[in-house]
């Protein structure tokens, strides 16, 4: 059941014209921005399915860039986000793709700033609800509705135990957990959604845990 809260049905309060193609795109952009952890200097957005056909009319392009600039769904600045991006010297490219996606409202964001890059794919489910489905080639299932922690780590025994034990020490309850890898024995991605917010010191400790390569915190 993807929808849990009445405010996913009555809401969000948003700038029009489309909850899936505008507000959903803002949320996907926001999630990507928060995972990236900084303002991107280069943005490439690839649109698939319905997005590829109607992104201009539904202002999906404007919306996703607004989200990448960390605007909320009801921020009037979304209307002029492309101009904001231009003024900040951010290079923005949109590419409608012909390849049929699994979900009709799919987009991929490729972000770059200096040496850092991020490639993340998400889908807009309708009514403003979204889900990230792929991060750097790892399959993913992240809504951003609850606090979450993303841990990139070596695919060796004991890492999951160490990470979950650290969360347990702070009485943080796990509501959902996903583990994925591209190849056995290489690098794996652990995605943990929690009921409680995750404090910074837990993030710090996790970063120092053996075999952990990168930790990203998302506060719901």
């Amino acid at each position, binding site marked *: *059941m*993807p*929808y*849990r*809260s*009445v*405010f*996913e*049905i*009555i*809401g*969000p*309060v*948003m*700038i*029009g*014209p*489309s*909850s*899936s*193609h*505008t*507000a959903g795109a803002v949320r996907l952009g926001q999630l990507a921005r928060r995972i990236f952890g900084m303002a991107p200097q280069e943005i490439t957005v690839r649109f698939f*399915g*319905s997005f590829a*056909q*109607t*992104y*201009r*009319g*539904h*202002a999906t392009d404007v919306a996703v860039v607004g989200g990448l600039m960390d605007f909320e769904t*009801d921020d*009037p600045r*979304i*209307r002029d986000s492309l101009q904001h991006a231009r003024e900040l010297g951010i290079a923005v490219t949109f590419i409608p793709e012909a390849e049929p996606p699994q*979900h*009709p*409202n799919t987009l991929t964001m490729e972000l770059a700033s200096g040496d850092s890059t991020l490639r993340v794919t998400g889908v*807009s*489910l*309708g*009514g*403003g609800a979204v889900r990230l489905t792929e991060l750097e080639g790892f399959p993913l299932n992240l809504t951003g509705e609850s606090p979450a922690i993303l841990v990139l780590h070596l695919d060796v025994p004991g890492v999951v135990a160490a990470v979950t034990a650290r969360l347990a020490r702070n009485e943080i309850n796990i509501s959902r957990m996903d583990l994925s890898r591209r190849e056995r024995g290489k690098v794996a991605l652990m995605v943990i959604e929690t*009921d409680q917010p995750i404090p910074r010191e837990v993030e710090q400790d996790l970063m120092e845990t053996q075999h952990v390569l990168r930790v990203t915190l998302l506060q719901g």
Partner: protein
Amino acid sequence: MFNSIQELVALAQAGGVPIWQVMISQEAEETGRGEEAILLEMGENYRVMKEAVGRGIQGVTTHSGMGGGDARRLHDYLQAGNILTDETLLKAAGYAIATNEVNAAMGRICATPTAGSAGVLPGVLLAMQEKMALPDETIVRHIFTAGAMGLVIANRAGISGAEGGCQAEIGSASAMAAAAVTELAGGTPHQAAHAMALALKNMLGLACDPLAGLVEVPCIKRNAAGAANAILTAELALAGIESKVPWDEVIQAMRQIGRGMPATFKETAQGGLATTPTGEAWKRLLWS
């Protein structure tokens, strides 16, 4: 959490409470928030809905130049007094149009359940509030009736035009509004569920075929149709008329129709009204 309309109505009946109360309790349990905070947030959403209506009635021009000004036209027509049907019905239709004209102009709205269908529920509720002279609190509570119906529809069939066509957007919105008005008028949870099913059945098969890929034509006026359909089916349910197909089976039918519909008619602007000569002309004018 309730997984079906059947379960939702059973919960209301077991507790001897309206559907809106079941929804508020469920929301509190799911999120760990207090009922007061939940009511406050919904009150804020209702304020946004009323603001959008107010702005739309003044007369809004959309970015494309394709739509706009119709809420004002209907408002003036109603003021002139020579109407065929009923003031509340036309007010609901006009407020629905107003909201979606504001939406098309990239104004601020509250998605119910989506932005393209955001006019239906506020249109119907605000018109009813004026007719019955009710306080905001009463209306805000009944938005939870609509929300409960919408949650089940969203989880069992979906609410996006790209997945299910316009039936999933205007159809869902109309079904949600029908249930809310039925409870508002004193109907039972059982009657509210029938109003939901009757409203949804009338919208089955509706394609999402917007001109130039904009959320304007036919979306804006379909909000008026969704509002009128909600009032009609609420009246039917209050008269004791029932859906012959059980509530959850109607939702299942919508899911099946949505899945079976070709992508041409699901928010791709590749068929239907979007590819009429006029639709093609607008596409060329705006995007080339």
